[in-house]
């Protein structure tokens, strides 16, 4: 069951990830990216991380991608004015260099298989525990960052100079 789910999410996720990059219309790329993110949420659930799985769906697939889709709809690019992308030779070269990068990025595989995690691994209580004790400073800094981002986005997107 886990094997089947892994291969399903892997094939769909990687396929849609490649389609994000190679499709001309930004709208279709955005839809493929949403599917990729949902597959990644499935991966997180398989890796005993239920909290990050639902946070991925809630924040990334449910909010960030909605925002990107909104902007795509607002910009409303005509099909004819979409840019001519590079020639096929450039893309094949990029693919080859990408293959080299994949092999280079892969770390030395750990030989020992992963042991079964304790039942409380990846639960919301555990994440909260770590977030408010060990990682308190990044948490507070992230909240300040969000405040700055909200103010910045509102000011930049207003029509009149503030």
């Amino acid at each position: 069951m886990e094997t089947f789910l892994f291969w399903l999410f892997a094939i769909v996720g990687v396929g849609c990830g490649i389609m994000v990059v190679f499709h001309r219309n930004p709208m279709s790329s955005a839809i493929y990216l949403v599917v990729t993110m949902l597959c990644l949420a499935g991966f997180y659930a398989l890796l005993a991380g239920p909290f990050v799985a639902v946070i991925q769906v809630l924040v990334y697939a449910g909010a960030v991608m909605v925002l990107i889709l909104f902007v795509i709809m607002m910009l409303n690019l005509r099909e004819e004015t979409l840019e001519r992308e590079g020639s096929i030779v450039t893309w094949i070269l990029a693919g080859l260099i990408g293959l080299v990068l994949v092999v280079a990025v892969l770390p030395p595989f750990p030989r020992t298989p992963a042991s079964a995690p304790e039942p409380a691994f990846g639960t919301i209580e555990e994440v909260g525990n770590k977030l408010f004790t060990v990682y308190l400073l990044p948490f507070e800094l992230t909240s300040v960052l969000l405040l700055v981002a909200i103010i910045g986005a509102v000011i930049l997107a207003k029509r009149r100079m503030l």
Partner: protein
Amino acid sequence: MFLDFVIVLIKAGVVLFALLNLAALLTWAERKQSAFMQDRIGPNRANVGNITAGGLLHIMADGIKMIAKEDFIPEGAHRMLHTLAPAAALFPALVVFAVIPFGDVLVIGGKAIPLQVANLNVGILYIFSIASLAVYGTMLAGWASNNNYSLLGGLRASSQMISYEVSMGLSILGILMIYQSAQLDVIVREQGQLLLGFIPQWGVLLQPVAFFLFLAAAVAENKRAPFDLPEGESEIIGYFVEYSSMKFGMFFLAEFVEIVIVAGLVTTLFFGGWQFPYLQADGFHWPFEAGVWHLPHLLVVLIQVGTFCVKVLIWCWILLLVRWTLPRFRYDQVMRLGWKMMLPLALANLLVTAVIVLLVT
């Protein structure tokens, strides 16, 4: 292992069956109830051989009409997205019910079956993540119709939905703090505890402000009156203007399924879920040490599931009532309410709850 899988499938099948049938029934109930409230009779003509079952056959008539109509995709529209949007609207509505417990543990032949399709550790967060996926149906429907008015309607609807998602999430955090868990079955079990010895501590008693905020935000999420400007129906073009036959039927059904979802959530989080006051696993435990009435296990489970169903039906009925009582909001009023009134109230509720929980424990 295989038996567990089959049991989960059976539970999911039962939940889906009940959900879809209740949604279909609500389409009839809405028309009959609005008729009674407006002092008329309502639909009563659909009959099979002169037997009109009080208008219940209108449900079948609606279904047949929707299937039999011509199904078209407007010229110049994005074909895949136009067909995908109704499915993207219906899927989140059906899937949310997986974490709502509709009964306590049922023990059959030594096997304990919890009456909940999936007991996730992050139950409430799962509900919000699926609710945030529901925006895609509206947005894609609005854009994929190749119609400017439809696009504007879709943008209106989706911005309303994402605005009220925030208030919905924040209002539930108080419940999380009080019942100390995000698992829905733990929350429902905790609501069986007695406050002051005789009052069951239902969520509505401990978090009244959160209850009203959640109810308003969930109705706005659902795009039902008084927040049904995206639908408009008589004033403004909505996002499903280019949809016909069963695709429109799917949007329609998704809306009614979401009514059941909102009712189910309100019962589970605020009204005790399947808890009947003073009923525990082995019988009635009356307060003030007045004694225990023992009941057989199956009867207890039946009472609990029945209580859940009755509560959900009452809340569906109240939601239907609200539609025909209140006038609808204008779009700027909706936005102002969501951001300037409900969000600060939800944050204040969170603060006060946190202070009280800190002081009490």
